[in-house]
């Protein structure tokens, strides 16, 4: 009998009897009780199909020896039959009978036979006429589950002789449920095209969905988290009406990187310890000559109301090529170009790009990182405007509370370090630098006296590391990045839970 049909066969029987014990089912369906139990359990998966209760019953069963006796007759009866009317020597009888000893003593105690020891050897004789093997008859009753017809004394006797044993039988009692049906439909896992087309979905049972399992992740490519953050920052600047600066020049002359920014030539930032110089190509040419003279003058002698740094400014130092240490070098080029326009027009510029520092590397410093920079050039723009625009900018990054600390920077005055209150870390963190570009930087370019330029800068990596809770920058940038982190990184909307 095919196992898959069994549950339906069980249902048929339940239909017939209204309620039935699994033992009965096993007997009727001529299968092992365990199979019936399995079938009933599978029916229980269908809610309301059947009602099942567990039952215990005691039952007498034959032991293997009991079954053997049922087939071959009891030992005592066999002994009895071996005794002819004329008798038989005891020695011979014991030799030809199986389990003679048990059979002999049993037959003796039943007084079926007797022993005559008067001759020179003991002889066995029948004592009475026995027509039926009573033991086998009782065993047969037990085998047919009719042990109740056997007297208790006998049952105990059989138990003692290890021919029968009493066992506790667990069974299931099955009744029709409220949603009983004879025809069992196997639940299907999923809706198919076929089902939709032949409407069979209407009658199908669908297997329960396991809502606790994880879904299957989509096969997809992924964007790098730092680049996602860059996109978020670009969007903020664009929302605020800023124009992106062309930053596609990693190699820059010291002139634009430092001198134009009124950073003196002996400044420690211009040391080989801090800045990458390039050996090939080693110098820049074609620095704008008139402007260069004005820069030289403001450094060495002063001018535009400044005393200058009063040192011997060297063009050779300015010509040296470096890998730009900040994108402010680009801002300087842009402001210079702006100053060359016949009429001044207010601008807002931004850039986010790589800058390079020959620094000692550690968990938060790499030789290259991304600088975010915003610049506003306008007539009569104030320090208050800088504060205001920083609040707007950082508001878009989810930072509402800001504090400003006086700081020093060679090319801005006033200079302000920006601190933001991090709601997650519950503390003030330094989030950037800002200031008003010095007249010594702007005036030599040719910008009018009343044009002020406010600017701020921050690194892209630091807020991203805080956001993604990464404490080693190498796990975020560069080839040692764990691609799994890239695969799993969120959309990096900085204004949410930053």
């Amino acid at each position, binding site marked *: 009998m095919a196992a898959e049909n069994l549950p339906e066969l069980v249902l048929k029987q339940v239909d017939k009897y209204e309620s039935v014990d699994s033992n009965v089912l096993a007997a009727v369906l001529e299968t092992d009780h365990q199979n019936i139990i399995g079938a009933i359990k599978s029916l229980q998966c269908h809610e309301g199909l059947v009602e099942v209760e567990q039952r215990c019953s005691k039952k007498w069963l034959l032991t293997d020896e009991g079954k053997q006796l049922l087939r071959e007759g009891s030992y005592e009866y066999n002994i009895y039959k071996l005794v002819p009317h004329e008798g038989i020597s005891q020695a011979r009888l014991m030799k030809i009978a199986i389990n003679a000893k048990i059979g002999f003593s049993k037959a003796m105690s039943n007084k079926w036979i007797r022993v005559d020891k008067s001759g020179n050897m003991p002889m066995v004789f029948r004592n009475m006429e026995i027509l039926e093997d009573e033991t086998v008859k009782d065993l047969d009753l037990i085998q047919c589950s009719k042990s109740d017809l056997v007297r208790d004394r006998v049952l105990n006797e059989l138990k003692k002789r290890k021919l029968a044993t009493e066992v506790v039988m667990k069974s299931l009692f099955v009744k029709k449920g409220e949603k009983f049906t004879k025809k069992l439909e196997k639940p299907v896992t999923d809706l198919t095209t076929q089902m939709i087309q032949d409407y069979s979905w209407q009658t199908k049972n669908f297997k329960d969905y396991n809502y606790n399992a994880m879904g299957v992740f989509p096969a*997809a*490519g*992924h964007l*790098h988290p730092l*680049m996602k953050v860059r996109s978020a920052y670009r969007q903020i*600047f*664009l929302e605020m009406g800023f*124009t*992106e*600066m*062309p930053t*596609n*020049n*990693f*190699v820059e002359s010291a002139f634009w990187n430092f001198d134009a920014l009124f950073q003196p030539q*002996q400044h420690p930032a211009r040391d*080989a310890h801090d800045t*990458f*110089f*390039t050996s090939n*190509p080693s110098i820049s*040419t074609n620095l704008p000559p008139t402007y260069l003279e004005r820069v030289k003058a403001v450094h060495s002698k002063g001018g*535009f109301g400044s*005393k200058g740094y*009063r*040192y011997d400014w060297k063009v050779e130092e300015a010509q040296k*090529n470096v*890998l730009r240490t900040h994108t402010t070098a680009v801002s300087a080029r842009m402001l210079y170009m702006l100053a060359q326009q016949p009429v001044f027009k207010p*601008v807002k510029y931004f850039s986010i790009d790589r800058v*390079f520092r*020959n620094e000692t590397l550690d968990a938060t410093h790499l030789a290259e990182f991304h600088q975010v920079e915003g610049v506003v050039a*306008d007539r009569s723009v*104030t*320090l*208050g405007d800088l*504060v*205001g625009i920083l*609040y*707007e900018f950082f508001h878009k990054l989810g930072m509402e509370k800001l*504090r*400003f*600390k*006086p*700081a*020093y920077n*060679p090319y801005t*005055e*006033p200079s*302000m370090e920006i601190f933001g209150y991090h709601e997650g870390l519950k503390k003030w963190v330094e989030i950037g630098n800002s200031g008003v570009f*010095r*007249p010594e930087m702007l005036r030599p370019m040719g910008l009018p006296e009343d044009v*002020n330029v406010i600017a701020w800068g921050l690194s892209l990596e630091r807020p991203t590391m805080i956001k993604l809770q990464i404490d080693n920058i190498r796990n975020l940038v*560069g*080839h*040692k*990045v764990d*691609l*799994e982190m*890239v*695969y799993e990184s969120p959309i990096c909307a900085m204004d949410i839970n930053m």
Partner: protein
Amino acid sequence: MPTISVNREQLFKCLGKTYTEEEFDALCFDYGLELDEVTSEKELIEKEQGHTKAADGASDAIIYKIEVPANRYDLLCIEGLVQALKVFLQKESAPQYTLLPPGKGDVQEIVMTETTKEIRPFCVGAVLRNIKFTQENYNNFIDLQDKIHSSIGRKRTLVSIGTHDLDTIEGPFVYDAKPPADIKFVALNQEKAFTAPELMELYSKESHLKGYLPIIRDSPVYPIIYDKNGVVLSMPPIINGDHSKIKLTTTNVLIEITATDLTKATVALDTIVAMFSGYCQKPYEIEPVKIIHPDQKRVLTPELSYRSEIVFADHLNKKIGIKISADDVAKLLTKMCLKSEVISQETGEVKVTIPPTRSDVIHACDIIEDVAIAYGYNNIVKTLPRSMTIGSQQKSMKLSERVRIELAAAGFTEALTFSLCSRDDIGKKMRQEGGEMERAAVHIANPKTLEFQVVRTSLIPGLLKTIASNRKMPLPLKLFEIQEVVLKDDKRDTKARNERRIAAVHYNKTPGFEVIHGLLDRLMQILEVKCATGNPSLRDVGYYIRAADDKSYFPGRCAEIVFREEVVGMLGVLHPDVITAFDLVCPAAAMEINFEKFY
């Protein structure tokens, strides 16, 4: 930013008030200082050497480490810091420094010789008369010299200071430059006299001095200062003589400063005398020294010059975005050690006096900053720039941003690799040693490690290195990057230019040329570039690939990407030697294309 360590108890005693750490931190923040660390001598030693006897013996008095702005040399010692804060808190007014002739006898002279021009051409000096040293201020005096050496002195290259017990020597002094072999004296804390070359040899083993030796080592003449009896005061910028060294009992101090930058020497001298003349019998009075130049020009130093600037309240208000009166401007500036007085209420004209201690003030904008600091940055009302501007993007970025998303949607993951790499990364490992990729590269003059020898000329090595560090990830690995490489270019002022590229690598059990090829086709599709393969009439506007040879690629599995009949990139199966060179095991196909041709 320089950091100074001050004893907390001493600091609060001088300030006349005990602060909690939070209160002092807040005061620092407002003034633009930073309370960097709270520690003790004991803790510092333990941090460096662990639990040692030295640590047990050390004091556990609290030390504040305070970061000061790099241009405020007047804050490099506790004397200056306390003075600035007390003036800021309006507990006292800034002292007036004056130059006085010596009480008796002539002014001290330092005669410069012609040869000093060859090595260290500037010299200034001053005398602190009747100074009273205590252990505390003596230590501060030494510390300040160290701080000045390392900051404004640029590790003694620009400025170096010698201080001497004037009573042990006799002027006039000579600042000379002599051949090293002609110099012989007993240097500070030495038992016997050494010649200059011997000293240089001796100090090459001393960690705190060996860094300064290169400043003069190769010069034919070494700077030397001696008195009228030939007693050597110092051999700048290396070491002082032992004879004239100052002690706790010294009462008259001669300060000499030699320099390669006169402005910085002047600032250094002004700072030292201003800070320590407070301990003189006549506080803040400084005895000048006459410097006689080789051309017989005579100059009295220190300068200690006060200068004044005129500012207008209205102008300051406009720059900061506040509205305060001329009186308030004067009051605020005076708090910042810039003594100011109102000239005219009507015009708001204020005369600001800049003392010699505020060498950082070189322009009106520095005065504006001090007004803003004294007003309180955090009290400034926020406003917004009024002009309307329209935002716009760089075309390259606008397109890159869109293409990045498309490539990720095509199943490739974005890598972000370094611009700097080793020469081997773009040469030997790519089987291009001495090739175009290496020749076009910008070389770094001062790399600290091999990883920063050149600026990359290809994005592919970075992608391969990314794969190498992610070999645990399930295959295939599909990576892309849209970034810039740098190529030498004589037409630019810097002789180099960036070029924006798109690169992609497919790494799997099989190379997947067709996968990379498919990515190229998809890229062209989204850029609306027609495929000219099998349709030669489209070659002027479209793209196709054609078989090519390149050492980085497997022979017979390499093609050029041709766009508008110009080669703009390459794709193919990477050469097995390239795979091995980057510590990879599986085959890979790669593509790199000059993106700039498409916008």
